[in-house]
């Protein structure tokens, strides 16, 4: 602080300020310019601003409107089934008085239970997570921590594309490529090697079923889990990585201790979000699950999910009770996915901070 004070050159000609209003008196009394008169006539636009603000708020409120609309309509239209079966709708099983065979879903006999569809949804989603999570996390680790920079962009882009392919196209691909492969090669292998477990039996020769829907669901939820995991992992501050590396850790130890440990809440969120997608996925599952309202131990047997039974039967439902039961399944599916998604969002936002970052 011993620097010489800066040399300040004061402009002395104007050092004595003129008093306000002592300027050219002619100019002072001049009429306001045309522009000024125009702008003065424009008002303060308080009304316009107010109205615009309100309009934009209304637009954003439609988001809540949609949720309200869904709940209102689904609750209203599922009343009939709700009154007939109550909570038992979700876990009962009927016995046919004549044949003494148990059944769950009998549109002709007006007996409905959502149990096989809940079972099918859970089994196929669980299979999907089992297959997808290790792959998705592995991909995310590779892309954020190991991948050469040149490959990172294109690979991230490819996974993004995977997320944008419509469900019906996955279904189309599964029907013509995946199912024949399963039928010819994978299923016989599973039966011969793991048939003893009872999870794989050879009663269903079509190749359709839970395994098929689990695989196609896994492919479909991979991108969302992997891209969110990537987002969460990049949100971990660099200092965390450097701190671990500075202790002499290998790269894997750095990833495990510095990155995954800090990002784990967000990764769980990403997995749950993938689960939410899997639960509600409709078209591809409908095309490969086999659509039968039964519960079998074998993963190779036909089944149905909550979404697939709606897609499959709704347009040809045979009566009001049938429709009402399908809508009740839809309502249940909605509530479950809302809860699952909300939970996942909270977890992901906890790590990444929620709102997009703002530019200045």
């Amino acid at each position: 602080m011993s620097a010489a004070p800066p040399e300040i050159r004061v402009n002395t000609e104007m050092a004595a300020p003129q008093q306000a209003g002592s300027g050219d008196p002619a100019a002072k009394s001049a009429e306001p310019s045309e522009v000024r008169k125009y702008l003065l006539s424009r008002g303060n636009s308080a009304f316009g601003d107010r109205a615009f603000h309100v309009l934009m708020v209304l637009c954003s409120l439609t988001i809540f409107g949609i949720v309200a609309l869904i709940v209102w309509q689904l609750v209203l239209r599922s009343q009939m089934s709700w009154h007939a079966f109550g909570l038992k709708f979700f876990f009962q099983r009927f016995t046919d008085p004549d044949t003494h065979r148990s059944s769950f879903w009998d549109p002709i006999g007006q007996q409905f239970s959502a149990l096989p569809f809940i079972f099918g949804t859970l089994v196929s989603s669980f299979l999907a997570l089992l297959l997808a999570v290790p792959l998705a996390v592995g991909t995310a680790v590779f892309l954020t921590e190991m991948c050469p920079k040149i490959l990172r962009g294109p690979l991230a882009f490819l996974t993004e594309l995977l997320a944008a392919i419509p469900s019906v196209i996955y279904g189309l691909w599964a029907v013509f490529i995946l199912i024949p492969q399963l039928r010819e090669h994978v299923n016989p292998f599973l039966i011969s090697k793991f048939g003893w477990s009872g999870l794989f039996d050879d009663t269903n020769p079509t190749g359709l079923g839970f395994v098929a829907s689990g695989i196609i669901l896994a492919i479909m939820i991979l991108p969302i889990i992997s891209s969110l995991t990537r987002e969460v992992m990049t949100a971990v501050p660099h200092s965390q990585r450097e701190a671990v590396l500075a202790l002499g850790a290998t790269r894997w130890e750095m990833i495990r201790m510095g990155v995954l440990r800090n990002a784990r809440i967000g990764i769980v969120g990403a997995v749950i979000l993938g689960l939410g997608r899997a639960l509600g996925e409709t078209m591809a599952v409908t095309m490969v699950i086999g659509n039968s309202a039964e519960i079998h131990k074998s993963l190779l047997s036909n089944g149905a999910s909550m979404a697939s039974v709606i897609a499959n039967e709704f347009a040809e439902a045979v009566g009001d009770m049938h429709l009402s039961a399908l809508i009740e399944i839809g309502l249940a599916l909605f509530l479950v996915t809302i809860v699952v998604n909300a939970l996942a969002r909270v977890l992901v936002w906890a790590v990444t901070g929620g709102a997009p970052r703002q530019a200045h």
Partner: protein
Amino acid sequence: MGVGIEVQNLNAWYGSNHTLQDICLNISANQATALIGPSGCGKSTFVRCINRMHETNPIARVTGTVRIGDVDIYKDAKPVEIRRRVGMVFQRPNPFPTMSIYDNVAAGLKLNGYSNRRALDEIVEKSLRNSALWDEVKDDLRKKSGASLSGGQQQRLCIARALAVDPEVLLMDEPASALDPVSTSKIEDLIFQLKAQYTIVIVTHNMQQAARVAEQTGFFLNGRMVEFDTTHKIFTNPSDKRTEDYITGRFG
């Protein structure tokens, strides 16, 4: 024509941060008034209170009185009306990137619904001449975008844009801090010419600049105005010890 500004007991907050405390000051018409002080002292907040720009931040709050001419801007008018009378030039040049040079200058009028093409042409030319940019851009007024100009040109474009609505006051928030020395001296020359017609308030952290362009200077420190006097007095014989410390480079 410029008008005077009268500020009484102006207080401003950002959230719980009391950034301006009891500012009282009279700014004379048709002069340049410089505001100096270390960064974070409140001088930028002060000019942003004069055109009610401060309140665009939802956590900001203002109390006190500011009169421009005979209008109490926080009582008698809406922000839009004030901002049409008080032009502002920001620290970093901020031309509208999607608009041509012409449209940038005409924006204040066009976006307020003014559509007289012949008058607009005249105003754009006059504003660009007044901001000493006309000769450099007259050939591609409509061809080039405002963002394609150099930094110094962009800043003069922003001045032209502010002049086009024929304001009475021109606020300049460190207008040359992001520019090279040549552009800076052009801007300073411009301020010299403009103060014949407008009341100019210029915030600067460059004391030489204040000394060169302004008749009056105010020194801000920690949200308070320490001293306000003629530039000559501030730089040669300040009455407050803190002002003296600052201008002799002992801190800040």
